[in-house]
């Protein structure tokens, strides 16, 4: 099959590792060969968390300039990972900012996101933006941001997996108490990326 390299970036606690794992599980169900890479350890104390899903190749990680899809859970982290993109990359990003504590102690300035997103839009094949935190809250669980982002990925139709197979995977792995809100969040994500 054609190789698809998908990079997830976010901040510790946003659940992007679960999102990449679920995507990997869905590939397994659909019979698509895939490898997932994660970074555990130091990075989880509020630091940057990056993961990747590579379909149809052996290497578990994605090099600079080689992402087919970049999924950013936090806008400044999407900017930081922008070097993973090339002119054919599709970028899907949450626009809800989560400034790092370095900003509070005056060790850096949080960037003007709108301006920076314009720059991204001009340099890749497609940029999809959504307020993932708002959609997660609307779905009834602020922690379901990862489901919103997964939904947006599937809704964009750039990977060979459909909504049903992802929903099945989510249903298999989610605790009953969160299932309804997670599926709702997923649907919101699908709808948001369809609108563009």
């Amino acid at each position: 099959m054609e190789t698809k390299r998908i990079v997830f970036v976010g901040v510790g606690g946003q659940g992007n590792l679960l999102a990449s794992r679920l995507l990997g599980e869905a590939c397994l169900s659909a019979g698509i060969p895939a490898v997932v890479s994660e970074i555990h350890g130091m990075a989880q104390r509020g630091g940057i968390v990056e993961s990747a899903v590579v379909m149809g190749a052996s290497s578990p990680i994605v090099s600079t300039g080689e992402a087919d899809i970049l999924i950013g859970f936090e806008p400044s982290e999407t900017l930081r990972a922008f070097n993973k993109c090339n002119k054919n990359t599709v970028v899907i990003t949450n626009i809800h900012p989560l400034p790092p504590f370095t900003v509070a102690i005056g060790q850096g300035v949080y960037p003007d996101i709108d301006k920076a997103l314009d720059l991204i839009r001009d340099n890749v094949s497609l940029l999809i933006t959504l307020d993932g935190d708002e959609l997660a809250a609307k779905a009834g669980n602020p922690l379901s941001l990862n489901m919103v982002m997964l939904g947006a990925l599937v809704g964009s139709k750039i990977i060979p997996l459909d909504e049903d197979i992802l929903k099945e995977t989510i249903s298999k792995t989610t605790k009953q108490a969160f299932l309804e809100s997670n599926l709702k969040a997923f649907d919101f994500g699908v709808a948001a990326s369809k609108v563009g």
Partner: protein
Amino acid sequence: MHKLLIDSPDEEMLLLGNDAIARGAIEAGIAIATCYPGTPSSEIPDNFFAMFREGGFYFEYSTNEKVALEVAAGAAISGIRSMCTMKHVGMNVASDTLMTLAYLGVNAGMVIINADDPLMFSSQNEQDNRYYARLSGLPMMEPINAQEMKDMTVAAFDLSEQLKLPVVLRTTTRLNHMRGMVKFGQIRQIKSKGFFKKDPFHYVALPAVSRNLHKVLLEKYDQALELSENSEYNQIIGNGKWGIVTNGVSMDYVQDAVKDLEISDEVTILRLGFSYPMPENMIVKFLTNVEKVLVVEELEPVMENDIRSIAQAKEIVVPIKGKEKGLFSRLYEFDPGMVRRTIASYFGVPDTSPKAVDVTGIPDLPGRPPNLCAGCPHRAMYYAIKQVYGPDAVHPSDIGCYTLGILPPLKMADIVICMGASVGTSCGISKATDQKVVSFIGDSTFFHAGIPALINAVHNNHKFTLVILDNGTTAMTGNQPHPGVDTAPMGVDTTQISIESLVRGCGVEHVQVVNPMQIKKGVAAAQASKDFDGISVIISKELCPLYARVIKKAKKVRPFYVNQDKCKQHLDCINLLACPAMYIDDGKTMINEVLCIGCTVCAQVCPENAILPLKKSA
């Protein structure tokens, strides 16, 4: 049932590399597993901990890697299968045992999992532990994906039994933390009782005995070499004129590069999975059929040097390149693009890599380093020490969450080497200078390697203060228990050891135990230690709140908020504590009530009493 215990061969699962190793151990019928945790190896023992009772084997978190290796060795010498897991630097701690254990050998399969960390995602160095195979004479195996991590673990046990030697399975972070498809195999019956057959002239490593044992070890090398020549994990793939030698995760990058560059007809790949001893005959066969060779290996030129010396011995003249300017570096980890580009340039084929976007327009981004969590007791203790000692005291520190105290505004780590070194370096620095020395060590780290150094400090009359940051767990690596932890809540029967008694037992007389969340008490303890002329210890005792939540001991508390009418913008809370729950919005100091765990520390620090608990209704 734990998913890794499912006894249905042919079951397929997406597994983390570390899960796959644990499954391999189950399939191999391990009777004993030991470890000291360490990223990127920790999920292997954490799986064992979650399933050892159900799985019918014995597991322990040992005090350190040396002890872990000895426990596993004792079991394997007594005839039952054992596994010991550690990160690469753990091998340094265990190496004294390792070197002579190789002489003694084992009677049942023993596998040592060694996890290297190129690029140092969470380590203090990126040493290449393939040298340990060469140093000790033990066979080494290196998998390339999740499936092999399981299969090779099973194979390593069989190999170990065949050679009567421990076998080292070496991974790197990318393999430990990748997920891939794994097809299960049969689970072997556990043999859980062994017998120690006395044979002192084999097992007591006196000089006269070891002289003979060393000879035996060299004979085993010859036997291992034969097995390596015929191993399914050593393969020559293809028959092109361009030779590529590779191992571990680099094999994945090489395979993808050859596919992307469409050069599979031009290339011959020598993949070394049973990587020590190196299969000399196979290497000779490979070298004689290619025109030039590129060695693709992360870190040190280990295979490159060995292959070169084989070529020299056999008088084979062929260019062999790897680590040099313009090709590969000895630094950090590789990635698929770098390997593809280097292969393309070395063999002179067009590079098909996509061109990365231009990022010059992207604004400077604020850093997002990992930080002590909101409400972390380490932060509170650091604050108290700083209040008393000011900025000039020297702070040797150690390895754990608390190392993050290096960050401003706390800046509470001045020198860190390896686990336990805080105490020893404090002895040296306090002896060499007139500066005040206050050092920090975590509870797990203290048990692991701090105790002999503390005894040294007492015995040799060193003068400094050691703060033991006792958060009741091994937090950095995922909340594993250690000897100071009561494991009853986890349903496991171990004996808890009191740090205070231990410290007193080491001969320290000035010992204070404080709850760091009570800032005044922390400051008073710091002052008392400063006034004391000699070695003193402060035990800063408060559970890691993340761990407290896991064991359901978290106190129910309300988050705090800043009363803007009272706040006079001293910014002490931000400038001295920098709890990540606090931020400044539009010139106002604010608290994120989702992140705040209501630890009260900032409220104690605020000179205006402007930080208050949120009302219930909020």
